[in-house]
């Protein structure tokens, strides 16, 4: 088990390194000039040259990548002397447009993204899995058909469209919710919930559809298993048969996609945050794209990728914990 863990950790680290290199390569090889982006719209040639030197853009790509990796591991400084800009560990770059280290920007935005992702995840997991289970148990019924139609609709909804419709209905027309703002949970729980409700519903409408469909088909498959027949033949109550013998195996694939989805969302719900104007990591990315702030785009990409890769690791570990057959191999 410990060996398995170490091996998985090594693979994770390798994947992160590859992603790091790939991201860096994109920005290095592509024609966009990072110095131009850092300098902003009105930029004198002298200032451009200074920034270029400060960023180390005049050095070889390998040196630059080395510097970047070094910055992540131990922090670094841009430029030298009195004009040097400090970027402490873990340095994911420095945003010259906002005069802040990227890491600081990311961590300050993270709570909002976590609030959105976790709340939505709880909602869609509850709704999606429950709907899928009921659909599978009453296959072919009116409920099943209605739920699956709704699920397919949810899967097909563009989230920015859902978001706008919700905001138009609930805020503008019915006036039951305020415009979402970033309220910390610890300061004003009610305000926090009021701000988060629409992002949660928006995301949950999409993801519940996905989860209902997956749960239903997984449940149908596991309900047809021989061991479910054995469980019935033992005289177990139907609730126990369904929960213990059919649902448990059906949840395994759901663990996988849940890990991936949650990981991706923690790295920023780009569209949802943009539409509702909530300052999460996703909004940071969207703003950085709009203002061509390359160090931030690079940083967010890496940051989000790390979440996905770590979610992958978590899923694998969860599998090992949940499935005795995997445990035996590991």
């Amino acid at each position, binding site marked *: 088990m410990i060996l398995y863990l170490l091996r998985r950790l090594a693979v994770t680290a390798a994947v992160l390194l590859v992603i790091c290199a790939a991201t860096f390569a994109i920005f290095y090889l592509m024609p966009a000039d990072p110095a131009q982006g850092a300098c902003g719209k009105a930029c004198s040639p002298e200032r451009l040259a200074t920034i270029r030197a400060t960023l180390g853009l005049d050095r070889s790509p390998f040196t630059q990548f080395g510097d970047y990796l070094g910055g992540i591991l131990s922090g670094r400084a841009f430029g030298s002397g009195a004009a040097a800009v400090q970027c402490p560990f873990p340095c994911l770059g420095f945003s010259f447009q906002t005069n802040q280290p990227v890491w600081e920007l990311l961590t300050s935005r993270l709570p909002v993204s976590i609030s959105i992702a976790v709340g939505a995840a709880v909602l869609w997991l509850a709704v999606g899995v429950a709907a899928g289970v009921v659909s599978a148990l009453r296959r072919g019924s009116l409920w099943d058909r209605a739920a699956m139609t709704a699920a397919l609709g949810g899967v097909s909804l563009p989230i920015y469209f859902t978001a706008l419709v919700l905001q138009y209905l609930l805020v503008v027309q019915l006036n039951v919710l305020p415009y979402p703002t970033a309220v910390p949970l610890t300061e004003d729980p009610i305000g926090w919930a009021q701000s988060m409700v629409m992002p949660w519903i928006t995301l949950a409408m999409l993801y519940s559809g996905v989860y209902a469909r997956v749960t239903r088909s997984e449940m149908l498959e596991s309900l047809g*298993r*021989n*061991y479910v*027949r*054995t*469980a*019935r*033949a*033992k*005289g*177990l*109550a*139907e609730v*126990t048969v369904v929960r*213990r*013998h059919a649902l*448990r*195996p059906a949840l395994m694939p759901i663990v996988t996609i849940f890990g991936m989805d949650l990981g991706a969302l923690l790295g920023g719900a780009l569209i949802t945050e943009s539409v509702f104007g909530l300052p999460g990591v996703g909004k940071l990315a969207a703003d950085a794209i709009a203002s061509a702030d390359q160090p931030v785009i690079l940083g967010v990409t890496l940051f989000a990728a790390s979440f996905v890769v770590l979610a992958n690791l978590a899923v694998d570990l969860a599998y090992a914990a*949940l*499935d*005795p*057959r995997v445990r*035996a191999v590991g």
Partner: protein
Amino acid sequence: MTLLTVRNLVVDFSSGVRAVAGLDLDLAAGQVLGVVGESGSGKSVTSLALLGLLPRDARASGEIRFDGRELTRLDQRALRRLRGNRIAMVFQDPLSCLNPYYPVAFQIAEAYRAHHRAGRKAAHRVAVRMLERVGIPEAERRARSYPHEFSGGMRQRVMIAMALCLEPDLLIADEPTTALDVTVQAQILDLLRELRRETGTAIMLITHDMGVVAGLADQVVVMRDGRAVERGAVRDVFHRPQQPYTRGLLACVPRIDGPLPHRLPTLSETA
């Protein structure tokens, strides 16, 4: 004393297939009834119909009288209390019939607790005792192992332990040895024979193998296309088969003492 009486059992599938077409069965307490036939003759469907475990697209009619009660008229609750407790079942493929996510002792204890007021620990002790009884070595330690950690024969022993932990009046064994290696088959049959002697449980033994019936059963029913074509004491049916079909089934059993045929006969020639 008659334990099980089946009269005119008919099972239809929504696809239009009639799997069982008017079957009569009689089984006395403590006896072993062999139900023999080719695959597709309706044996397994019959056993599922007895427990009320037919798939959704199947409909059963007729009489199933078990210990004085008419099973077709019982509601799900009453039927559930009967399953496992009074009528237990062992299936063909023990790997797919055991849940891979739970230790074997848990799955046995679960059956026990479905019908007895017993705590986790007490039920676990029952499970370990049953594992010992069906011949699992180091039962105490192996109890916490998962199904995939056992061999095929050991898994079938677990299934039998699970079926017998509630001391049922009737054990339905549906092809209990088919998925196993030949030497293991013999061991499992020995185990069933021994357990029957000790507990006095009646057994309905479903198989396509006349050899298995010969070693264990008292009575035999030969099924074909959902009907019983021949029935009687094992000795009579084996020595004086009335139907060509039965003769065909018997001829399919290779004998070590008989002359070697040029070619094994097939059923289509003889029936």
